[in-house]
């Protein structure tokens, strides 16, 4: 796991990964796309991209940041923020308990990590979703952290980069989650004054209130191959129009065709492409 910087206190270590229920468990991983069984270290070396078919598997946020940013350059900020339960929300489980369990399981407080880092020497204000934390849903903590990414960028005159992977607003925080869409978008409006680029990188999947706010407001919008990106989830659309969606609908390639994003960037080229864009715009 060469991309894990030694200075990261909360990087997932292999023994933690073992305890985590995930498709990435064990020494062998089956590719969802081509069904090839692959030796796990082989995939990790390949940035969680299937060496056989190129399928982009989920890539943990900390590993992504460590690999995309210059070595040891990531300084995490706003780690002190913790979610609350303003509605006293309960479904089959109390939201409070769900948070506690997820936190214990992942050793993360919420679904977003952020701070400062460098890409090819350029300092950036950066953030990345943790999709494994309640589907990367955006509640008050995620909204606040995203807002601070743009406020920090504005104060320090830096470019901003956000990697999104989220099912949308977090239902369990109700109206507070919805309002994070306005809050984050307003922070971007202010950030625009400093004339630094905001690069939004859309990962699989990015939908709902996250897609419909800061994620789609990038000066440049990149996407990983075959990521599902859209406002409504495919199931909701199918129920509404009462027909099956065409193959490839709402995927990165479809969005590129429709002029809704700027480029599709395979993971292996991500660091280089971001560096190139920063060179051109920052």
């Amino acid at each position, binding site marked *: 796991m060469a991309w894990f910087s030694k200075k990261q206190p909360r990087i997932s270590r292999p023994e933690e990964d073992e305890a985590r229920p995930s498709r990435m468990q064990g020494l062998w991983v089956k590719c969802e796309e081509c069904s090839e069984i692959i030796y796990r270290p082989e995939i990790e070396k390949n940035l969680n991209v299937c060496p056989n078919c190129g399928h982009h598997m989920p890539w943990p946020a900390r590993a992504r940041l460590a690999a995309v940013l210059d070595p040891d350059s990531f300084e995490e900020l706003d780690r002190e923020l*913790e979610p609350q339960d303003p509605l006293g929300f309960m479904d089959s489980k109390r939201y409070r308990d769900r948070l506690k369990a997820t936190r214990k399981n992942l050793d993360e407080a919420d679904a977003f990590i952020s701070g400062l880092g460098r890409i090819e020497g350029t300092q950036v204000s950066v953030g990345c979703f943790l999709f494994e934390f309640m589907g990367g849903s955006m509640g008050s903590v995620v909204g606040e952290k995203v807002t601070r990414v743009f406020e920090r960028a504005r104060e320090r005159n830096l470019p901003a980069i956000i990697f999104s992977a989220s099912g949308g607003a977090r239902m369990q925080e109700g109206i507070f989650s919805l309002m994070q869409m306005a809050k984050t978008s307003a922070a971007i409006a202010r950030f625009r004054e400093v004339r630094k680029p905001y690069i939004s990188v859309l990962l699989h999947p990015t939908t709902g209130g996250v897609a419909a706010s800061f994620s789609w407001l990038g000066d440049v919008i990149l996407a990983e191959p075959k990521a599902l990106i859209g406002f409504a989830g495919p199931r909701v659309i199918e129920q509404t129009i009462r027909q099956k969606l065409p193959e490839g609908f709402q995927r990165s390639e479809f969005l590129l065709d429709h002029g809704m994003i700027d480029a599709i960037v395979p993971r292996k080229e991500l660091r280089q492409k971001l560096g190139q864009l920063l060179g051109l715009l920052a």
Partner: protein
Amino acid sequence: MAIATTYALDFERPLIELERKIDELKALSQSGASDFTAEIARLEKKAKRLQSEIFSDLSRWQVVQLSRHPARPYFLDYVQHLFTDFFELEGDRRFAADAAIVGGFARFDGEPVLVIGHQKGRSTKENMQRNFGMPRPEGYRKAQRLMKLAERFRRPIFTFVDTPGAYPGLGAEERGQAEAIAVCLETMSGLTVPVITTVVGEGGSGGALAIGVGNRVLMLENSVYSVISPEGCASILWRDGSRADKAADAMKLTARDLHGFKIIDEVIPEPPGGAHRDPAKMAESVGKSLRKHLSQLKQLSPEALVDDRYRKFRAMGVFLDNA
């Protein structure tokens, strides 16, 4: 604005039946058949009591039903009551006209302003045309265009929210529904003119918020505002959309709830029995609130208006900061 509908919600029915009886007796009295004055007085008293019984303790789900009542006044009803000289502007200049969002310039107390609102249909035909008040990207792009126009001409903006949500359709996705909403949010946050949002019915998620980034956000007493519809919430949580009543309670989505959370600035009381029972009176109350807030906001400079709006939304969210 006489509303030609006999539609009644389950919990309204006993009241409506009683009122029908009173009307019948009144008609009989008038025809001179016999004198029912005493009986009418007794029933009217009973109706009043029944009304306050039903409406003093509405469940959240009942409020959701009232917010969607087919006879509830819609955006254009408020336009008719509160504004003069309305000139609708329909074009998004991109792809199509979207009748689910209506916008145009008009006068409020004689002063030119912009009004924008979601618009549901009264009839099946009109609902087809207005897509049940569910906008496509074109509606949001029209709203952006009109809001920028209003800013350029320094006209205050009134938005009226009443939608089940942005339309989740094939074409809407193809043409960038998420982008259209996102740009609305950013555009509104930077407007240098006063913006007052009133939720008059359903505030359905991002499709509602897209025209809801106001310096002031007001809600009618029986309106709702939520991150997802109660049905959608229930079908995700319990895989059963029919438990929407439970979801409504879990999400705390009424005007009173949101006022308690300090998400909105004011709850505008509705006439007894709900806005649909007396649309003219309802509009009068809305007008009074709009007038009050507009006169406050007009004291602010363009920069102060942007600041005021930024601070308002910046402060939204509940979390623990251990720093």
